[in-house]
């Protein structure tokens, strides 16, 4: 009963938590990425790093796959945007070579206070590497 009550209240105050359409959200995300990082005039593929302090490597790869699918154009043989999972920004050895090529970075996060230190470090490191941070992808969960 309390769950139902909570859902009713949330539906009233926070409809975004309940009525999100994942496909629709993905399409919004696609449009925003497109506007922030339009296709390169020289046809070069855009490389976007995807990082997170909450997702596992598999989950990150899975998200990259989803994003790639969402951004893909059926009429193009090669994708305009490529998403690469950068599991941990501390693994500089793998990140630095990618950083030089990366056009931007997406951070998948869920707002949790315990994550602040990791997010802080990630942002500092990404900035130090000169990577453009496009923004957050908010991972929501209906509890």
């Amino acid at each position, binding site marked *: *009963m*309390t*769950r139902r*009550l*909570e859902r009713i*209240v*949330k539906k009233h*105050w*926070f409809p*975004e*938590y309940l009525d*999100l359409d*994942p496909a629709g*959200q*993905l399409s*919004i*995300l696609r449009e*925003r*990425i497109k506007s*922030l990082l339009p296709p390169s005039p020289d046809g070069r593929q855009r490389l976007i790093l995807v990082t997170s*302090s*909450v*997702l*596992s490597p598999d*989950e990150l790869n*899975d*998200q990259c796959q*989803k994003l790639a699918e969402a951004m893909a154009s059926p009429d193009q043989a090669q994708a305009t945007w490529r998403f690469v999972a950068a599991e*941990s920004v*501390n693994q500089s050895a793998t990140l630095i070579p990618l950083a030089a090529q990366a056009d931007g970075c*997406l*951070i*998948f*996060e*869920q*707002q*949790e*206070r*315990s*994550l*602040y*230190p*990791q*997010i*802080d*470090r990630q*942002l500092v490191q990404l900035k130090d590497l000169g990577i453009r*941070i*496009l*923004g*957050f*992808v*908010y*991972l*929501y*969960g*209906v*509890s």
Partner: protein
Amino acid sequence: MDENATVYDIRLFICSLLRKLKLILLAALIGALLLGGFQAVKAWFADRASQESLTVNRKKIKELQDTQAFNERLLADYQTYVDASLYQNLNPLAITRTSLYNHVRYVPDSGAAPELQDPETIARNENVILNAYRLVGLTEPVVAALDALLGESHATKYYDEIITVDILADASLVRISALYDDPDLSRQLADTVQSALYADLSERVRPHTLSLIRVADSTAADPDMRTAQSDMLTKIDKLTIEQKAIDRQIEALKNPAAESQLTWQTIVQFAVFGALIGLALSLLLLFFVDAVSLKLDQEKTLTTRYQLPVLGRLPAAAASSGKARHKRAKSTQKGQNP
């Protein structure tokens, strides 16, 4: 980047309260049981003590009722006395005291034996007559004569308060005094007593003569009479008040049910109060728990803290469970901070 920026939304707090509604209700129930139970136990002990005191109360009621009956009788007597007494109804501001001084002389029958004529026998007989005046007081014929004078019947005791008969034995004098708030009536009363008593004692004790040698009368305020009248009214008032107080005491002792009824009301009041306290404490506790909670599902905080846009929202449930993510986050943190 604003390190301290945290946006707290009361609506989210309410959502989290709803999630813990059972806990809140439980806290309210515990509060109600604790305070209501405390009051109930207190009432139980009070009730037991009340049962024990019931026997004592019955005895007290009996004693009070006896006192009340006695007082009632006393009050009736006082009231009768105040209504019937001549002394109580005179005006003490102008009282006339009339005193008749009479010389008593024994007169033997003309044919009496010579031994009855000697001075010693005469003196002894005069002494008998004086003692009769002193001791007999107001005889029935005297009272009847007084009733006839006043036109109403009064008991002897009420005449005794305003009429005195005393003697000066050495001088063979009898003094008859009467008090009244009317000078004429005062004199008439004294005259009536004198003539009626003389007639009665002459016939029944010894033949004698009674010579009036002086009449003294004076009119003045009588403070003793005033005090006596006032004291009597005060006694009546005090008794009336005491009777009412006893009534109240008996009523209070007879009615312990009122207290028990009040106790039930108090138990309910305490239970409600306890529930409110439990509710308030649980809300306060949950607020603090929520305030220091690690998780605040709030996108706005993220954007405010890092000044970066949220480009989109994707469901996290499919990715992994919250616990797993949290565990991973912790392990990452440990790895980075050896």
